Protein backbone atom coordinates (compact mmCIF):
# COMPACT_ATOMS: atom_id res chain seq x y z
CA UNK A 1 0.00 0.00 0.00
CA UNK A 2 2.99 2.24 0.47
CA UNK A 3 3.51 2.57 -3.26
CA UNK A 4 -0.10 3.59 -3.79
CA UNK A 5 0.28 6.18 -1.08
CA UNK A 6 3.34 7.57 -2.77
CA UNK A 7 1.58 7.75 -6.12
CA UNK A 8 -1.50 9.37 -4.62
CA UNK A 9 0.52 11.94 -2.77
CA UNK A 10 2.53 12.76 -5.90
CA UNK A 11 -0.71 13.05 -7.86
CA UNK A 12 -2.21 15.36 -5.30
CA UNK A 13 0.86 17.56 -5.31
CA UNK A 14 0.88 17.69 -9.10
CA UNK A 15 -2.73 18.75 -9.25
CA UNK A 16 -2.22 21.36 -6.58
CA UNK A 17 0.83 22.76 -8.34
CA UNK A 18 -0.94 22.77 -11.69
CA UNK A 19 -4.01 24.61 -10.55
CA UNK A 20 -2.09 26.74 -8.13
CA UNK A 21 0.23 27.97 -10.85
CA UNK A 22 -2.61 28.69 -13.21
CA UNK A 23 -4.51 30.68 -10.61
CA UNK A 24 -1.34 32.44 -9.51
CA UNK A 25 -0.47 33.40 -13.07
CA UNK A 26 -4.01 34.51 -13.83
CA UNK A 27 -4.21 36.71 -10.77
CA UNK A 28 -0.71 37.92 -11.48
CA UNK A 29 -2.11 39.53 -14.63
CA UNK A 30 -4.59 41.41 -12.50
CA UNK A 31 -1.98 42.30 -9.91
CA UNK A 32 0.28 43.65 -12.61
CA UNK A 33 -2.49 45.80 -14.06
CA UNK A 34 -3.43 47.15 -10.68
CA UNK A 35 0.10 47.84 -9.47
CA UNK A 36 1.14 49.39 -12.78
CA UNK A 37 -1.94 51.57 -12.60
CA UNK A 38 -1.31 52.66 -9.03
CA UNK A 39 2.23 53.55 -9.93
CA UNK A 40 0.87 55.66 -12.78
CA UNK A 41 -1.57 57.61 -10.62
CA UNK A 42 -4.60 55.68 -11.80
CA UNK A 43 -6.62 52.69 -10.62
CA UNK A 44 -6.50 49.47 -12.53
CA UNK A 45 -9.50 47.32 -13.39
CA UNK A 46 -12.15 47.75 -10.73
CA UNK A 47 -15.40 47.13 -12.53
CA UNK A 48 -15.51 43.40 -13.12
CA UNK A 49 -15.66 42.37 -9.47
CA UNK A 50 -14.77 44.06 -6.21
CA UNK A 51 -11.33 45.47 -6.85
CA UNK A 52 -11.48 43.85 -10.27
CA UNK A 53 -11.05 40.39 -8.80
CA UNK A 54 -13.13 38.72 -11.48
CA UNK A 55 -11.15 40.37 -14.27
CA UNK A 56 -8.90 37.37 -14.99
CA UNK A 57 -11.95 35.15 -15.28
CA UNK A 58 -13.55 37.60 -17.67
CA UNK A 59 -10.35 37.67 -19.71
CA UNK A 60 -10.21 33.89 -19.83
CA UNK A 61 -13.81 33.60 -20.93
CA UNK A 62 -13.27 36.24 -23.58
CA UNK A 63 -10.20 34.41 -24.87
CA UNK A 64 -12.21 31.23 -25.17
CA UNK A 65 -14.87 32.93 -27.24
CA UNK A 66 -12.44 34.42 -29.72
CA UNK A 67 -12.02 32.99 -33.16
CA UNK A 68 -9.11 30.59 -33.20
CA UNK A 69 -7.56 31.75 -36.43
CA UNK A 70 -4.70 29.79 -37.94
CA UNK A 71 -2.69 31.48 -40.66
CA UNK A 72 -2.83 30.00 -44.11
CA UNK A 73 0.27 27.99 -44.77
CA UNK A 74 0.97 27.50 -41.10
CA UNK A 75 2.15 24.14 -39.93
CA UNK A 76 -1.00 23.19 -38.11
CA UNK A 77 0.37 20.64 -35.71
CA UNK A 78 3.39 22.65 -34.65
CA UNK A 79 1.26 25.77 -34.46
CA UNK A 80 -0.97 23.98 -31.99
CA UNK A 81 1.97 22.40 -30.17
CA UNK A 82 4.05 25.52 -29.49
CA UNK A 83 1.88 27.06 -26.76
CA UNK A 84 1.56 23.65 -25.15
CA UNK A 85 5.34 23.33 -24.91
CA UNK A 86 5.65 26.85 -23.56
CA UNK A 87 3.16 26.25 -20.78
CA UNK A 88 4.51 22.81 -19.96
CA UNK A 89 8.09 23.99 -19.63
CA UNK A 90 7.13 26.84 -17.38
CA UNK A 91 5.10 24.61 -15.09
CA UNK A 92 7.40 21.61 -14.85
CA UNK A 93 10.18 23.64 -13.28
CA UNK A 94 8.03 24.07 -10.23
CA UNK A 95 8.18 20.35 -9.51
CA UNK A 96 11.47 20.63 -7.65
CA UNK A 97 10.66 23.69 -5.58
CA UNK A 98 10.04 23.14 -1.89
CA UNK A 99 7.16 25.28 -0.85
CA UNK A 100 7.36 24.66 2.85
CA UNK A 101 8.87 22.52 5.59
CA UNK A 102 7.84 18.94 6.04
CA UNK A 103 4.30 18.64 7.33
CA UNK A 104 2.22 15.88 8.79
CA UNK A 105 -0.94 15.08 6.90
CA UNK A 106 -3.02 12.44 8.63
CA UNK A 107 0.08 11.16 10.37
CA UNK A 108 2.09 10.88 7.19
CA UNK A 109 5.20 13.01 6.84
CA UNK A 110 4.84 14.88 3.55
CA UNK A 111 7.49 16.98 1.89
CA UNK A 112 6.01 20.08 0.38
CA UNK A 113 8.01 19.45 -2.73
CA UNK A 114 6.89 17.35 -5.63
CA UNK A 115 10.22 15.77 -6.52
CA UNK A 116 13.34 16.11 -4.41
CA UNK A 117 15.63 14.94 -7.17
CA UNK A 118 19.26 14.61 -6.21
CA UNK A 119 20.13 16.82 -9.16
CA UNK A 120 17.32 19.28 -8.69
CA UNK A 121 19.32 22.23 -9.97
CA UNK A 122 19.91 20.51 -13.25
CA UNK A 123 16.20 19.91 -13.57
CA UNK A 124 15.54 23.61 -13.18
CA UNK A 125 18.10 24.58 -15.79
CA UNK A 126 17.13 21.90 -18.24
CA UNK A 127 13.40 22.36 -18.07
CA UNK A 128 13.51 26.12 -18.28
CA UNK A 129 15.56 25.75 -21.43
CA UNK A 130 12.72 23.80 -22.97
CA UNK A 131 10.66 26.95 -22.94
CA UNK A 132 12.74 28.27 -25.81
CA UNK A 133 11.33 25.53 -28.02
CA UNK A 134 7.86 26.85 -27.54
CA UNK A 135 8.90 30.23 -28.83
CA UNK A 136 11.00 28.98 -31.71
CA UNK A 137 8.25 26.70 -32.94
CA UNK A 138 5.62 29.39 -32.54
CA UNK A 139 7.44 31.88 -34.69
CA UNK A 140 8.39 29.40 -37.35
CA UNK A 141 5.05 27.68 -37.69
CA UNK A 142 3.15 30.95 -37.98
CA UNK A 143 4.32 31.41 -41.54
CA UNK A 144 4.68 35.15 -40.98
CA UNK A 145 7.71 37.40 -41.15
CA UNK A 146 6.89 39.34 -37.99
CA UNK A 147 6.44 36.20 -35.98
CA UNK A 148 9.57 34.67 -37.37
CA UNK A 149 11.70 37.69 -36.57
CA UNK A 150 10.19 37.98 -33.14
CA UNK A 151 10.83 34.37 -32.32
CA UNK A 152 14.40 34.51 -33.61
CA UNK A 153 15.12 37.54 -31.46
CA UNK A 154 13.35 36.09 -28.51
CA UNK A 155 15.08 32.74 -28.60
CA UNK A 156 18.49 34.34 -29.15
CA UNK A 157 17.83 36.51 -26.13
CA UNK A 158 16.75 33.58 -24.02
CA UNK A 159 19.71 31.38 -24.78
CA UNK A 160 22.09 34.26 -24.21
CA UNK A 161 20.84 34.82 -20.73
CA UNK A 162 20.68 31.19 -19.81
CA UNK A 163 24.43 31.21 -19.48
CA UNK A 164 24.26 33.99 -16.93
CA UNK A 165 21.53 32.16 -15.09
CA UNK A 166 23.42 28.90 -15.13
CA UNK A 167 26.63 30.42 -13.84
CA UNK A 168 24.88 32.29 -11.05
CA UNK A 169 23.22 29.09 -9.99
CA UNK A 170 26.57 27.36 -10.27
CA UNK A 171 28.02 29.75 -7.71
CA UNK A 172 25.25 28.73 -5.35
CA UNK A 173 25.90 25.07 -6.00
CA UNK A 174 29.61 25.47 -5.29
CA UNK A 175 28.88 27.32 -2.08
CA UNK A 176 26.43 24.72 -0.84
CA UNK A 177 28.20 21.75 -2.28
CA UNK A 178 25.12 19.96 -3.53
CA UNK A 179 22.77 19.91 -6.48
CA UNK A 180 19.84 18.87 -4.34
CA UNK A 181 17.38 21.66 -3.77
CA UNK A 182 16.42 20.67 -0.26
CA UNK A 183 20.09 20.82 0.71
CA UNK A 184 20.28 24.32 -0.65
CA UNK A 185 17.25 25.39 1.34
CA UNK A 186 18.66 23.67 4.40
CA UNK A 187 21.90 25.59 3.98
CA UNK A 188 19.93 28.82 4.30
CA UNK A 189 18.39 27.94 7.63
CA UNK A 190 20.47 30.64 9.27
CA UNK A 191 21.42 33.06 6.53
CA UNK A 192 19.98 33.51 3.04
CA UNK A 193 22.38 32.89 0.20
CA UNK A 194 21.66 36.37 -1.15
CA UNK A 195 23.88 37.68 1.60
CA UNK A 196 26.60 35.14 0.92
CA UNK A 197 26.45 35.51 -2.85
CA UNK A 198 24.96 38.95 -3.50
CA UNK A 199 26.50 39.21 -6.95
CA UNK A 200 25.06 35.88 -8.01
CA UNK A 201 21.66 36.97 -6.75
CA UNK A 202 21.68 40.16 -8.76
CA UNK A 203 22.99 38.43 -11.85
CA UNK A 204 20.45 35.67 -11.53
CA UNK A 205 17.61 38.15 -11.19
CA UNK A 206 18.64 40.14 -14.23
CA UNK A 207 19.21 37.02 -16.31
CA UNK A 208 15.92 35.54 -15.26
CA UNK A 209 13.96 38.63 -16.19
CA UNK A 210 15.65 38.62 -19.58
CA UNK A 211 14.94 34.91 -19.93
CA UNK A 212 11.31 35.64 -19.25
CA UNK A 213 11.07 38.35 -21.91
CA UNK A 214 9.80 40.78 -19.33
CA UNK A 215 10.42 44.52 -19.35
CA UNK A 216 12.97 46.00 -19.60
CA UNK A 217 14.05 43.07 -21.77
CA UNK A 218 10.85 42.69 -23.73
CA UNK A 219 11.81 44.07 -27.12
CA UNK A 220 10.83 40.86 -28.89
CA UNK A 221 7.31 41.41 -27.66
CA UNK A 222 7.19 45.15 -27.96
CA UNK A 223 4.04 46.08 -29.78
CA UNK A 224 5.65 49.01 -31.47
CA UNK A 225 8.37 46.96 -33.02
CA UNK A 226 7.04 43.55 -33.83
CA UNK A 227 3.30 43.66 -33.28
CA UNK A 228 3.33 40.91 -30.71
CA UNK A 229 6.51 39.17 -31.80
CA UNK A 230 6.24 35.45 -32.00
CA UNK A 231 2.69 35.56 -30.65
CA UNK A 232 1.36 37.74 -33.47
CA UNK A 233 -0.61 35.13 -35.33
CA UNK A 234 -2.05 33.54 -32.25
CA UNK A 235 -5.55 34.31 -31.07
CA UNK A 236 -8.02 33.07 -28.54
CA UNK A 237 -7.05 30.26 -26.27
CA UNK A 238 -3.65 29.62 -27.84
CA UNK A 239 -2.68 33.22 -27.24
CA UNK A 240 -3.94 32.93 -23.71
CA UNK A 241 -1.66 29.92 -23.29
CA UNK A 242 1.41 31.94 -24.26
CA UNK A 243 0.37 34.72 -22.01
CA UNK A 244 -0.17 32.25 -19.24
CA UNK A 245 3.20 30.66 -19.88
CA UNK A 246 4.87 34.02 -19.51
CA UNK A 247 3.20 34.69 -16.17
CA UNK A 248 3.74 31.18 -14.89
CA UNK A 249 7.38 31.66 -15.78
CA UNK A 250 7.37 34.80 -13.67
CA UNK A 251 6.02 32.89 -10.72
CA UNK A 252 8.43 30.00 -11.28
CA UNK A 253 11.47 32.21 -11.63
CA UNK A 254 10.54 34.10 -8.50
CA UNK A 255 10.11 30.79 -6.71
CA UNK A 256 13.51 29.58 -7.88
CA UNK A 257 15.11 32.83 -6.76
CA UNK A 258 13.40 32.53 -3.40
CA UNK A 259 14.53 28.96 -3.00
CA UNK A 260 18.11 29.50 -4.06
CA UNK A 261 18.83 32.93 -2.68
CA UNK A 262 16.24 34.12 -0.23
CA UNK A 263 16.05 31.14 2.04
CA UNK A 264 12.91 29.49 0.68
CA UNK A 265 10.39 28.87 3.42
CA UNK A 266 12.75 29.79 6.26
CA UNK A 267 11.80 32.80 8.30
CA UNK A 268 13.64 34.73 11.02
CA UNK A 269 11.66 33.09 13.80
CA UNK A 270 9.58 30.33 12.31
CA UNK A 271 9.44 28.47 9.03
CA UNK A 272 6.32 28.18 6.97
CA UNK A 273 4.71 28.09 3.59
CA UNK A 274 3.58 31.63 4.00
CA UNK A 275 7.15 32.88 4.26
CA UNK A 276 7.81 31.29 0.91
CA UNK A 277 4.71 32.87 -0.52
CA UNK A 278 5.59 36.25 0.93
CA UNK A 279 9.03 36.19 -0.63
CA UNK A 280 7.70 35.11 -3.99
CA UNK A 281 5.11 37.86 -3.77
CA UNK A 282 7.80 40.41 -3.05
CA UNK A 283 9.78 39.31 -6.09
CA UNK A 284 6.68 39.39 -8.26
CA UNK A 285 6.05 42.92 -7.06
CA UNK A 286 9.62 43.67 -8.08
CA UNK A 287 8.84 42.42 -11.58
CA UNK A 288 5.96 44.83 -11.93
CA UNK A 289 7.92 47.61 -10.32
CA UNK A 290 10.65 47.23 -12.94
CA UNK A 291 8.10 47.23 -15.69
CA UNK A 292 6.61 50.47 -14.43
CA UNK A 293 9.96 52.17 -14.17
CA UNK A 294 12.45 51.17 -16.80
CA UNK A 295 12.48 51.84 -20.53
CA UNK A 296 13.03 48.97 -22.86
CA UNK A 297 16.53 47.89 -23.75
CA UNK A 298 17.35 48.04 -27.41
CA UNK A 299 18.01 44.60 -28.73
CA UNK A 300 21.71 44.97 -29.39
CA UNK A 301 22.28 46.50 -25.98
CA UNK A 302 20.35 43.67 -24.47
CA UNK A 303 22.58 41.09 -26.15
CA UNK A 304 25.65 43.04 -25.23
CA UNK A 305 24.60 43.12 -21.61
CA UNK A 306 24.13 39.37 -21.62
CA UNK A 307 27.40 38.45 -23.29
CA UNK A 308 29.78 41.23 -22.39
CA UNK A 309 28.73 42.01 -18.86
CA UNK A 310 26.73 39.27 -17.22
CA UNK A 311 28.69 36.35 -18.62
CA UNK A 312 32.15 37.59 -17.62
CA UNK A 313 31.01 38.81 -14.23
CA UNK A 314 29.20 35.62 -13.37
CA UNK A 315 32.17 33.59 -14.58
CA UNK A 316 34.41 35.61 -12.35
CA UNK A 317 32.00 35.05 -9.49
CA UNK A 318 32.17 31.30 -10.06
CA UNK A 319 35.95 31.33 -10.07
CA UNK A 320 36.19 33.41 -6.92
CA UNK A 321 33.58 31.27 -5.20
CA UNK A 322 35.40 28.10 -6.14
CA UNK A 323 38.69 29.46 -4.83
CA UNK A 324 37.18 30.65 -1.57
CA UNK A 325 35.29 27.43 -0.97
CA UNK A 326 38.31 25.31 -1.72
CA UNK A 327 40.55 27.33 0.55
CA UNK A 328 38.12 27.31 3.45
CA UNK A 329 37.15 23.66 3.10
Amino acid at each position, binding site marked *: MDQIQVILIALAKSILIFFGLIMAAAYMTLTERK*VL*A*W*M*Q*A*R*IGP*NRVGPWGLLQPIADAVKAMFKEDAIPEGADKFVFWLAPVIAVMASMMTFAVIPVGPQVNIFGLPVDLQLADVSVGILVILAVSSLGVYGIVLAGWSSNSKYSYLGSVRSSAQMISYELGMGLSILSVVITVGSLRISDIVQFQATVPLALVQPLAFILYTISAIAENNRPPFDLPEAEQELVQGYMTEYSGLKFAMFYLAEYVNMVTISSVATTLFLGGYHGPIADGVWWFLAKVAALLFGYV*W*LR*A*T*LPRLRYD*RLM*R*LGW*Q*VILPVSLLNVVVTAVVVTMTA
Partner: protein
Amino acid sequence: MASSGSVIQDVKDLLSIGKGLSITFRYLFRPKTTFQYPEEKRPDVKRLRWRHKLHRYANGLERCIGCALCAAACPAGAIYVEAAENTEEDRRSPGERYARRYEINLLRCIFCGYCEEACPTQAIVLGQEYELVGDDREQFIYTKERLLVPPSEGHGEAPEGMRSLPYVQEELK
Protein backbone atom coordinates in the same frame (compact mmCIF):
# COMPACT_ATOMS: atom_id res chain seq x y z
CA MET B 1 28.22 48.52 -21.76
CA ALA B 2 31.56 48.58 -19.97
CA SER B 3 33.23 50.04 -23.02
CA SER B 4 31.01 53.12 -23.25
CA GLY B 5 32.36 55.39 -20.58
CA SER B 6 33.97 54.88 -17.23
CA VAL B 7 33.02 52.48 -14.50
CA ILE B 8 31.96 55.45 -12.42
CA GLN B 9 29.49 56.38 -15.13
CA ASP B 10 28.15 52.84 -15.10
CA VAL B 11 27.75 52.94 -11.35
CA LYS B 12 25.95 56.27 -11.64
CA ASP B 13 23.66 54.76 -14.25
CA LEU B 14 22.87 51.86 -11.98
CA LEU B 15 22.06 54.20 -9.14
CA SER B 16 19.79 56.21 -11.39
CA ILE B 17 17.75 53.05 -11.87
CA GLY B 18 17.26 53.08 -8.14
CA LYS B 19 16.14 56.68 -8.25
CA GLY B 20 13.58 55.82 -10.91
CA LEU B 21 12.34 52.93 -8.83
CA SER B 22 11.88 55.19 -5.84
CA ILE B 23 9.77 57.57 -7.89
CA THR B 24 7.41 54.87 -9.07
CA PHE B 25 7.21 53.52 -5.57
CA ARG B 26 6.26 56.90 -4.17
CA TYR B 27 3.52 57.16 -6.75
CA LEU B 28 1.83 54.15 -5.22
CA PHE B 29 0.77 56.37 -2.37
CA ARG B 30 -0.26 59.42 -4.30
CA PRO B 31 -3.91 60.18 -4.98
CA LYS B 32 -5.24 58.75 -8.21
CA THR B 33 -6.67 60.84 -10.96
CA THR B 34 -9.26 58.36 -12.17
CA PHE B 35 -12.89 59.39 -12.46
CA GLN B 36 -15.35 56.59 -11.93
CA TYR B 37 -17.51 57.43 -14.91
CA PRO B 38 -20.53 57.25 -15.09
CA GLU B 39 -21.00 57.60 -11.37
CA GLU B 40 -18.58 60.52 -11.20
CA LYS B 41 -18.23 63.01 -14.00
CA ARG B 42 -15.62 65.62 -14.62
CA PRO B 43 -16.73 69.07 -13.52
CA ASP B 44 -17.96 71.18 -16.41
CA VAL B 45 -15.62 73.73 -17.81
CA LYS B 46 -17.11 76.91 -19.22
CA ARG B 47 -15.79 76.61 -22.74
CA LEU B 48 -16.35 72.93 -23.39
CA ARG B 49 -16.82 72.36 -27.11
CA TRP B 50 -19.51 69.74 -27.47
CA ARG B 51 -23.01 69.55 -28.87
CA HIS B 52 -24.08 72.61 -30.81
CA LYS B 53 -26.95 74.88 -29.98
CA LEU B 54 -28.71 77.40 -32.17
CA HIS B 55 -29.38 80.43 -30.02
CA ARG B 56 -32.13 83.03 -29.97
CA TYR B 57 -32.52 86.61 -28.94
CA ALA B 58 -34.32 87.51 -25.75
CA ASN B 59 -37.48 88.31 -27.67
CA GLY B 60 -37.61 84.80 -29.13
CA LEU B 61 -36.37 85.54 -32.62
CA GLU B 62 -33.73 83.14 -33.89
CA ARG B 63 -30.24 84.49 -34.14
CA CYS B 64 -29.41 82.49 -37.23
CA ILE B 65 -29.76 84.52 -40.41
CA GLY B 66 -29.00 81.67 -42.81
CA CYS B 67 -25.75 83.17 -44.09
CA ALA B 68 -24.02 79.77 -44.11
CA LEU B 69 -20.70 81.23 -43.00
CA CYS B 70 -20.53 78.36 -40.54
CA ALA B 71 -20.94 75.83 -43.33
CA ALA B 72 -18.17 77.55 -45.25
CA ALA B 73 -15.88 77.58 -42.24
CA CYS B 74 -16.47 74.00 -41.26
CA PRO B 75 -13.35 71.94 -42.05
CA ALA B 76 -15.30 68.71 -42.06
CA GLY B 77 -18.21 69.89 -44.17
CA ALA B 78 -20.63 68.83 -41.50
CA ILE B 79 -23.12 71.72 -41.75
CA TYR B 80 -25.90 72.14 -44.28
CA VAL B 81 -27.77 75.42 -44.49
CA GLU B 82 -30.75 76.35 -46.67
CA ALA B 83 -31.83 79.94 -46.33
CA ALA B 84 -35.26 81.45 -46.91
CA GLU B 85 -36.71 84.93 -46.83
CA ASN B 86 -38.44 86.21 -43.76
CA THR B 87 -41.96 87.43 -44.51
CA GLU B 88 -43.85 89.75 -42.22
CA GLU B 89 -46.34 87.07 -41.27
CA ASP B 90 -43.69 84.44 -40.72
CA ARG B 91 -40.68 86.23 -39.24
CA ARG B 92 -38.14 83.91 -37.73
CA SER B 93 -35.10 86.11 -37.40
CA PRO B 94 -34.43 89.84 -37.48
CA GLY B 95 -33.29 90.84 -40.93
CA GLU B 96 -33.99 89.41 -44.36
CA ARG B 97 -33.10 85.75 -44.12
CA TYR B 98 -33.39 82.86 -41.80
CA ALA B 99 -32.26 79.27 -42.05
CA ARG B 100 -35.09 77.15 -43.39
CA ARG B 101 -33.01 74.01 -43.07
CA TYR B 102 -30.06 73.79 -40.72
CA GLU B 103 -28.48 70.41 -40.20
CA ILE B 104 -25.24 69.35 -38.59
CA ASN B 105 -23.89 65.86 -39.09
CA LEU B 106 -22.39 65.14 -35.70
CA LEU B 107 -20.47 62.17 -37.03
CA ARG B 108 -18.54 64.41 -39.40
CA CYS B 109 -18.18 67.24 -36.92
CA ILE B 110 -14.80 67.51 -35.28
CA PHE B 111 -15.98 69.96 -32.61
CA CYS B 112 -13.33 72.48 -33.56
CA GLY B 113 -15.52 75.52 -32.98
CA TYR B 114 -14.75 77.24 -36.29
CA CYS B 115 -18.47 77.57 -36.99
CA GLU B 116 -18.88 79.29 -33.66
CA GLU B 117 -16.05 81.66 -34.55
CA ALA B 118 -17.42 82.34 -38.02
CA CYS B 119 -20.99 83.11 -37.01
CA PRO B 120 -21.69 86.85 -37.20
CA THR B 121 -24.68 86.73 -34.88
CA GLN B 122 -23.40 84.19 -32.32
CA ALA B 123 -26.17 81.87 -33.33
CA ILE B 124 -24.31 78.58 -33.49
CA VAL B 125 -22.48 77.90 -30.26
CA LEU B 126 -20.85 74.72 -29.01
CA GLY B 127 -22.41 73.68 -25.73
CA GLN B 128 -21.64 71.33 -22.91
CA GLU B 129 -23.58 68.16 -23.63
CA TYR B 130 -21.22 65.34 -24.56
CA GLU B 131 -23.18 62.19 -23.95
CA LEU B 132 -24.22 61.82 -27.56
CA VAL B 133 -25.08 58.23 -28.26
CA GLY B 134 -27.04 56.80 -31.13
CA ASP B 135 -27.96 53.54 -32.74
CA ASP B 136 -27.61 54.35 -36.40
CA ARG B 137 -26.14 57.05 -38.60
CA GLU B 138 -29.39 58.90 -39.33
CA GLN B 139 -29.79 59.76 -35.68
CA PHE B 140 -26.64 61.81 -35.86
CA ILE B 141 -27.92 64.32 -38.39
CA TYR B 142 -29.05 66.94 -35.93
CA THR B 143 -31.75 69.08 -37.49
CA LYS B 144 -32.65 72.62 -36.65
CA GLU B 145 -35.41 71.57 -34.28
CA ARG B 146 -33.03 69.53 -32.21
CA LEU B 147 -30.40 72.25 -32.16
CA LEU B 148 -32.56 75.27 -31.38
CA VAL B 149 -32.78 76.37 -27.80
CA PRO B 150 -36.28 76.94 -26.43
CA PRO B 151 -37.59 80.51 -26.77
CA SER B 152 -37.37 81.08 -23.03
CA GLU B 153 -33.60 80.70 -23.22
CA GLY B 154 -32.91 83.54 -25.58
CA HIS B 155 -30.37 86.18 -24.68
CA GLY B 156 -29.36 89.56 -25.96
CA GLU B 157 -31.28 92.31 -27.67
CA ALA B 158 -32.34 91.76 -31.25
CA PRO B 159 -31.27 94.47 -33.68
CA GLU B 160 -33.97 96.42 -35.45
CA GLY B 161 -35.08 94.54 -38.55
CA MET B 162 -33.12 96.15 -41.34
CA ARG B 163 -33.81 95.56 -44.95
CA SER B 164 -30.52 97.01 -46.00
CA LEU B 165 -27.54 98.88 -44.73
CA PRO B 166 -27.98 102.60 -43.87
CA TYR B 167 -25.72 104.01 -46.60
CA VAL B 168 -27.61 102.12 -49.27
CA GLN B 169 -30.85 103.52 -47.94
CA GLU B 170 -29.26 106.96 -48.24
CA GLU B 171 -28.43 106.31 -51.90
CA LEU B 172 -31.90 105.12 -52.63
CA LYS B 173 -33.39 108.36 -51.33
